[in-house]
């Protein structure tokens, strides 16, 4: 049997990969934001697992940090998305691109 640390890290890895893939394939900005959240939380999970493995508090501190950052990011991100939706009447991220190389 694998131990709890390994299982936790594998779970964090799987979550991160899922978030990354959905980030790459989604065009809807809301879902992209959700994917970012998933990836952030996967990283947070990895911190927690590592903290419990070594019995150190810093991992939890990092998680608090990520949590705070994610909250800020979501609020700013959602505000941007609202504005974008007003402008473009769409949530497609590609629509927002005005750059043509």
């Amino acid at each position, binding site marked *: 049997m694998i131990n709890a640390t390994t299982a936790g890290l594998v779970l964090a890895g799987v979550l991160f990969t899922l978030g*990354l893939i959905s980030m790459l394939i989604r065009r809807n900005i809301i879902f992209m934001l959700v994917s970012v959240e998933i990836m952030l939380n996967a990283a947070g999970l990895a911190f927690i697992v590592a903290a419990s493995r070594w019995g150190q508090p810093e991992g939890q501190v990092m998680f608090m940090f990520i949590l705070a950052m994610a909250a800020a990011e979501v609020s700013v991100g959602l505000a941007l998305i609202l504005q974008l939706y007003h402008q473009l009447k769409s949530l497609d991220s590609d629509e927002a691109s*005005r750059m043509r*190389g």
Partner: protein
Amino acid sequence: MEWMYLVPALPFLGALILILFSGKIGKPGVIAVGCGSIGLAALVTIVAGWQFMQSGVPAFSQHLWEWLRVGDFSIGVNLRLDALSLSFAFVITFVGWLIHIYSTGYMSDDPDFARFFACMNLFVGSMLMLVLADNLLLMYLGWEGVGLCSYLLIGFWYKAPENGAAARKAFIVTRVGDTAMAIALFLLVQHTGSLQLSVVLERAQSLWAAGDPTVVWIAFLLLGGAVGKSAQLPLQTWLPDAMAGPTPVSALIHAATMVTAGVYLIARTNVIFSLAPAAQTAVAITGAVTLLLAGFSAWVQTDIKRVLAYSTISQIGYMFLALGVGAWSAAIFHFITHAFFKALLFLGAGAVIHALHHEQDMFKMGGLRKSLPGVFLVFLIGSLSLAAIPFISSGWYSKDQIIWLAGTAAGGRPVYAFAAVLGAFITAAYTTRMMLLVFFGKEQTHVHHKPGPEMMVPLYVLAVCSTLAGFLELPHTLGHFTWLSDFLQPVLPEVVTQHASVAAEWGLQTITAGLAALAIYITWRLLNAPFPKEAGAFLKSGWGFDAAYDVLFVQPFVRIARLNRKDIIDNVYTGLAAITRGLHRMMSATQSGIIRWYVLGVVMGAVLILSVIIWRHSM
């Protein structure tokens, strides 16, 4: 003799006045300045020449100012008067003066009267500079100066593009020869450290043994310059086209004076040619071949001036032949008689052309014997000289001397004499043809206006000269009078003959005279006989030299110019710019604004870095 500097200075001054004040002095002023300066120069030449002959010194030189001095190498603007330069200077100023007077009539209706005389004066000045120069660089100045004037005067009627083309052709073809001559000067500077004639010729004798490769190179390069200026093979192609200029120009520049500059150069540097037997043989062969080729071409021309042009090439061929066999003074003798009778013929042709309203085609002339009797008379005298009719024409005395020496002089060969005799036969033939076509037969074009006295008087003077000039030298058979050779002896070595027998000379003279008579008879009988068309066209075009040069040099150059108008080297730099711009495009294309591509980029980067780290750790 102290006034010698005035000889070239007066024509230059005249030219300067004519250029600066042409608008202000009016036509009489132009005539006064143009003819007056040359007349004065002729007078000074005669006085200086008289003093020179009285003084008995071999050479007199005059230092004007230091032209350039670099280290030990120094060149002065120095003039030199000796027998050779005096002979040339006399012919140039005297014939030049007569032609100037003639031109006041010939050019009187031309709106660019002043420009014509400015160029003519400039020409006479440059030509005098050429022959009076004491060093080769100053001679080169005159040499190129006459080239410039020749260019300006051939293209005098600049509105016709073909005149411009002829003018440029003359300048460029002679420049090819001039460049060869310039290289000869570099060699002389390198080896003798000087360009002063006396120094160069003296050092050449002590520096090189006969046949030394260096001196042979120098002689060949000088010959290159000479054939360019004197329109000899292989650079003869410019002279027939040069007839695009006004006829007095053809008389002065392209017959009497400038084209004989090559003869002068070779005679002047005779020491170098004597040291280079190969080059001297080349001079003789050039002369022999040219006189024949040009003679045949003259035979089939229809334009009267082109007949005379080819005949000039041919006659200079005789001079080259004489130089090549070592008969130096014979060449100068022929130069003098030729200057008189060819100037006479050209001016006579000019009078005809003028009278017929610029008609130059001989087949449209005819019967002018009655309407222009004065011109007929002088033209006949000139033609007799050209055809070398014995005893009564100066051309016979000089040409006969060359024919005789071509076989008997130290460098002579029977084959040269044969070529010279054959050339005399052709000369008689085409001269007769020209006379018959122009002055006999049926009148085809009506005479518009007869030449005035300002045109006729120079013609009479030249007619007298072209008869009397022959008596400067008489052959062995007629008492062996050698005034000119004796006079030139301090400059030009005496001709060495191998096996002279008076009887043989009699024989040769008889043969030549007989052939001339035969040529006249045949031409008279066969004047309108049909001639093979292709052969005629080939000869008329001057043996296809023009076409060959066109294919070999002109067209490749023009084609390269057309291909490379935009400078292919620039493509290297524009290519470099294009590569930079391409890279820039590629990089900026990645900045698409599509977030998922950016994320992918981040992921790929992360994966790359991680895999490198892992790979390094697993090693």
